[in-house]
């Protein structure tokens, strides 16, 4: 039983990371009907920005303040990256067919992954990612709590806590603010929203910035917990987060959170009780099942096609 509870905690902390990334997928899909394949790589860049920022802070005692600074720094940097990607890659082709947009997204993703692997240490020591994995220094102080045999580390609690806090903030933003309302209007009908005087370019940019910032938070959190990061880490995390978004109902914010938790927990349970080789098979198996039985996702609504 203790083992099971421990696995549950492991699963929830992994699931919160998936959920944070899934939110970005789902938000962008909501407003643009675009699967932003570069999103996983934005998450990777977030982890790296966090890594370099925390190296700048190294030597100081690990504290929650420095952890917070690192996370905010990474979020701001990735929000800007999200804006740049949207402006340079997606906006010029927004009016083209959806396939063009999708292929552009794949191109952006490959571009980021390969630039991150460039090995130019000779010219720019320390500031280029390079293909070798990097390891996060400890950012926040480390505590351990034992609750009836279950080990809770401060890292795990931080991951779960911060993720939930960010998700609640996002929910508040979307439901209560004017920009959030405009976002919902866009996802409902982009052209009508434009006719109502909503600046669609601005709202889409905000959506990208927000989603990218959340992914960056996920990157820093995974760095604190795992603590290994590498230039291709975004691929598999991005894919699983995408599965999570589809599972919960793509375009649906609470659905992405639920999907992330489900994927994370089931993955940990599979590794713990079956075999690590089935780790990824399960995530994608679930995806196929959901698509067969409930194509709109668990919390998704059926949308009638308007012709």
């Amino acid at each position, binding site marked *: 039983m*203790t*083992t099971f509870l*421990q*696995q549950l905690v*492991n*699963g929830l*902390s*992994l699931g919160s990371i998936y959920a944070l990334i899934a939110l970005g997928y789902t938000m962008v899909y909501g407003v643009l009907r675009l699967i932003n394949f570069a999103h996983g790589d934005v998450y990777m860049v977030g982890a790296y920005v966090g890594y370099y920022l925390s190296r700048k802070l190294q030597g100081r005692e690990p504290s929650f303040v420095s952890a917070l600074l690192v996370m905010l720094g990474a979020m701001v940097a990735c929000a800007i990256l999200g804006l740049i990607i949207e402006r340079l890659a997606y906006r010029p082709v927004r009016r083209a067919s959806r396939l063009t947009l999708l292929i552009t997204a794949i191109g952006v993703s490959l571009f980021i992954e390969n630039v991150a692997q460039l*090995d130019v240490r000779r010219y720019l020591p320390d500031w280029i990612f*390079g*293909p*070798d*994995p990097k*390891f996060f220094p400890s950012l926040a102080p*480390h505590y*351990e709590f*034992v609750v009836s045999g279950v*080990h809770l*580390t401060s*890292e795990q609690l931080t991951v779960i806590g911060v993720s939930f806090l960010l998700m609640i903030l996002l929910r508040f933003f979307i439901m209560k603010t004017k920009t959030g309302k405009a976002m919902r209007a866009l996802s409902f009908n982009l052209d009508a929203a434009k006719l109502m005087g909503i600046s669609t370019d601005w709202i889409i940019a905000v959506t990208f910035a927000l989603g990218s910032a959340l992914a960056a938070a996920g990157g820093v959190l995974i760095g604190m*917990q*795992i*603590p*290994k990061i*590498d230039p291709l*880490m975004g691929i598999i995390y991005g894919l699983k987060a995408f599965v999570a978004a589809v599972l919960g109902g793509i375009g649906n914010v609470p659905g992405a959170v639920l999907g992330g938790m489900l994927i994370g927990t089931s*993955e*940990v*349970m599979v*590794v*713990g*009780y079956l*075999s*690590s*080789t089935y*780790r990824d098979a399960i995530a994608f198996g679930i995806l196929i099942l959901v698509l067969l039985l409930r194509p709109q996702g668990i919390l998704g609504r059926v949308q009638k096609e308007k012709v």
Partner: protein
Amino acid sequence: MRLRSLVWAAAAAMVLSAGGCGKGRTTDEIRVGEYSSLTGTTATFGQSTHNAITMAYDEVNAAGGVLGRKIKVFVEDDQSKPEEAATAATKLINQNHVVALLGEVASSRSLAAAPICQANSIPMVSPSSTNPRVTQTGDYIFRVCFIDPFQGGVMARFAAETLKFKRVAILVDVRNDYSIGLQTFFRENFKRLGGTIVSEQSYSEGDSDFHAQLTQIKSANPEAIYVPGYYTEVGTIARQARELGIPSTVPLMGGDGWDSPRLWEIGGEALNGCYFSNHYSTDNPSPVVQKFVKDYRDKYKQTPDALAALGYDAAKILADAIQRAGSTDGPKVRDALAATKDFQGVTGKISVNSDRNAVKPAVILKVENGKYVYAATVNPEDVKM
């Protein structure tokens, strides 16, 4: 118009460079190829090996070369990926026309390149691939290190007889031939010596979250955990194990895949008291070892790990074989390599047996505050394979 002249310039450049290539073939140097993991998850393996090979051939060339000719090394980076290793071997053989290949550290990558060397009758000497299947590829494939059955057996013997452990858990990399090899022979030997394997968990190279596996291992309450993986994962596993409350009195144990200066950087204090089997120890007072350690430190400002020592031995043995063969002909070099006997290398006296493997002792090292301290030596005759 400008475009057209550009195209012509490019074509001319290609012709010129091709001409340069052809010219190189007729010069007097002996071309040796090296493919190694200079980047990627096991980058330090490739870098150490590469440094040592460079050093070995600088020494050989300074002493007049082999057969009166200088040795020139052509290097290809395989980015720690098996498919890239195959590409690298093909390129070295077909484009650079090397007479022999040195590589790789990882068994999975040696296994990818070995069939290509065999098919082209180009001898290949692996410095440190320990999986038995590597040299079974064919009679052109050699190695200068011991093999997994021996290494797995060494640690089983040390755990059962010296540390008196009865209950051990295993965490194996299922996508890695090396790791599976060590695990299989550790399990067999440990059971024969009266021990029990209380839990067997797996991961895949490149994974970074091991909480689920370690939680299962913890619930089985082992006295030690055998983790025959590579340093990147091992360091991460050690940290996560301690975080999950597996006490530091339960050591992690492993093989030569741990041997990297980065292991401590990644795992830190979590690794204190852990053991791994290795090819040599820098504490060895033998003058051959001490001279090698000193030269390497002078040249590269770091302590040579076992991969450097093996890279050095592989390079020297190959040079020695070419000298004895009196030719750079593939079959002749192969025969000379197969006849290697009692070659005094940095990692001990090396003889090549009929399976083209090296026979020699192993050492056990203990991790103590970032240093790898000598703990024991296990001889080939002590271990049943």
